[in-house]
C-alpha cells in the first residue's frame, strides 16, 4: 500500500511539480495551500509524512509545525520543511522540523530527504 504524504505549498506550480515527483516515487500525495486546511487534513488523514512550505497564507508553516509537534497524537509524523529563505533553517529545526530544504531545490533532494525522514 502506497504511503501518504501531505504537501502544504501555496505556489501551485511548485506544488504540481512536487506532487509529480513524489507520485513517481510511489507516494500518495494530497496537497493543500493553506496552513489552516493542512492542520485539519493532518488530523483527519494521519499522513506518513509532511512536506511543508514556510510562507503560507494565513497561518505560517513554522506555526503549523509547532502545533503538530505540540500534539502528542501528531508529533511523530516526520516533517520536511521547504523555504526560500535559508535563514529560516534555525527556526524550523527549533520548531521540530526533521529536515530543512532550501528553495530552489533539486528534485532528487526532495525524494531522498522524504525517504530518509519517513523510513524505508
Amino acid at each position, binding site marked *: 500500500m502506497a504511503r501518504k504524504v501531505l504537501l502544504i505549498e501555496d*505556489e501551485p*506550480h*511548485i506544488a*504540481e*511539480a*512536487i506532487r*509529480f*515527483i513524489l507520485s*513517481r516515487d510511489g507516494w500518495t500525495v494530497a496537497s493543500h495551500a493553506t496552513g489552516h486546511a493542512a492542520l485539519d487534513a493532518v488530523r483527519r488523514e494521519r499522513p506518513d509524512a509532511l512536506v511543508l512550505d514556510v*510562507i503560507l497564507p494565513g497561518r505560517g508553516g513554522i506555526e503549523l509545525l509547532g502545533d503538530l509537534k505540540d500534539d502528542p497524537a501528531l508529533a511523530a509524523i516526520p516533517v520536511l520543511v521547504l523555504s*526560500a*529563505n535559508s*535563514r529560516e533553517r534555525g527556526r524550523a529545526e527549533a520548531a521540530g522540523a526533521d529536515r530543512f530544504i532550501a*528553495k*530552489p*531545490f*533539486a*528534485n532528487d533532494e526532495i525524494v531522498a530527504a522524504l525517504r530518509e525522514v519517513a523510513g524505508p
Partner: protein
Amino acid sequence: MPRTALTGTRVRERRLLLGLKQADLARTAGISPAYLNLIEHNRRRVGEPLLVTLAAALGLDPAALAEGAETALIGGLREAAAGASAAARAPEIERIEEFVGRFPGWAELLADRQARIAALERAVEALNERMAHDPHLSAALHEIVSAVTSVRSTAAILAETDAIEAVWRRRFHRNIYEDSIRLSEAAAALVAYLDSSQDGETGLSSPQEEVEAWLAATGYHLAALEGHEAPPAARLVARAEELASDAARTIATAHAGRYRDDALAMPLAVITRALAAEGPDPARIAAALDRPLAAVFRRLATLPAGQGQEIGLVTCDASGTLTFRKPARGFTLPRFGAACPLWPLYEALARPMVPLRAEVEMDGRVSHRFLTYSFSEPRHPGGFDGPPVIEAMMLILPAEGPRTGAERPIGVSCRICARGDCLARREPSILGTAEPG
C-alpha cells in the same frame, strides 16, 4: 605647526623658537638633557606634571603642547587597534604616539584604511539589515525564488523523464512558460526598485553621519535660518548636497525646523546678550529669557564661530542612543557603538526634569576637564495615553579654574578607555595597561 607634530616635536619646535638650549630647558624642567632629547623625539611619554613644567618653561598652555591635529589620527589608530583580530599580534598601543611621530605617512594611511573598513562594515550591515527587513525587497526576492524553484523543478522533470504523459507534458510546458513571464516581471520590478533607491540609501554613511557632516561643514550654525526672513527648513535642506539619502534629509529637516523655531524665539543678539549677562548656566539663561531649557541648550551649542565654538552638545533618546553629536575640543565622541556610561548625560536620562551640573575629566594621556550641564525631559506627542518620548542632552564646556578634585572620571567608550578601576566598565579595554587610580 606641521600637521604631524607631536608633543615632543612641539617641545622641540618651541624651544628652538625661543633660542633655548636643550640643556637649559632640561635643567629648568628638572630632567636630564638625554631624557629631554628622548622626549623631543617622541621616544618617551610626557606625564602631566612634567608637561605642565615644560609648558611653563616654554611659555605655553599645557594643552597647547599636548593637543594637536594628530589627536584624531591617534584616535583612528586606536580604533584600528580595537578592531585587530584576536589571533593577530597585539598592536603596541603604548607606542602609538611614537609611531605617529616617526611614520606620519604610514599612520595616516592606516587610520584612513581603518575609516574605510569601518565605513564598508557599516554599509554591509545596512545592506544586511535592509535585506532582512525591507518588505519590498523581501517580497520581490521571494517571488523570484518561487518562480526559479518552479522552473527548475519542472524543467528537471521534463528533462529527466523519458515517458511522460502528454497531459502532464502540456501542463509543465505551460507552467514553465508562465513562470518565465513571472520571473522576468519580478526581476524587472526588483531592478526598478533598486534603481529608485540607489541614491545615497545604500551609501557608506549612516543618515545621522550625513547630517553631522553637513552640520560640521556649517560649524553647526545655520546662519540662513537666523531671523524672521529665514526660509523654510525643507528648502535649506533641499539645497544641501551633503545630504544624499532620504533618511538624512528627513533628520536634517527636523533638526533645521527646530533650529529655525529656536532662532525665532531666541534671536542671536538675545542669546549672546543673555550668555554674557548670565554666564553659561543654561538654567539661568532659560529663566532670564523665559524660554525652555532644552531650547537654550540647543542655542548655546549652535552659536556662530567665536561665540560658542567651544561648546559641545550631545543628545540621546531613551535607549541611550546618541541622536546628536557636536564635539567639543578634547571631548572625544565615539564614532560607533555606545558611549561611556558615566557621562552625566545618562544620569540625567535616568532622572528626568532634574538639571545636573557636573565637572568631568576625560580619559586621555593629558586629561581634559569639562563643565557639563545635563537635563532630560519627556514629551508626550501621543497625548496622555501615548508613550512618553524622552530626550536627554548634555552641554560640554571647557572647565575653567583650578582642579577641584571632584571631577568625575569619564572616557569615550569602554573599548578605548584606559581607566583600570572603572566600576561601570562593559568590556575590557584594548588599552589594558593603565594602572588603577
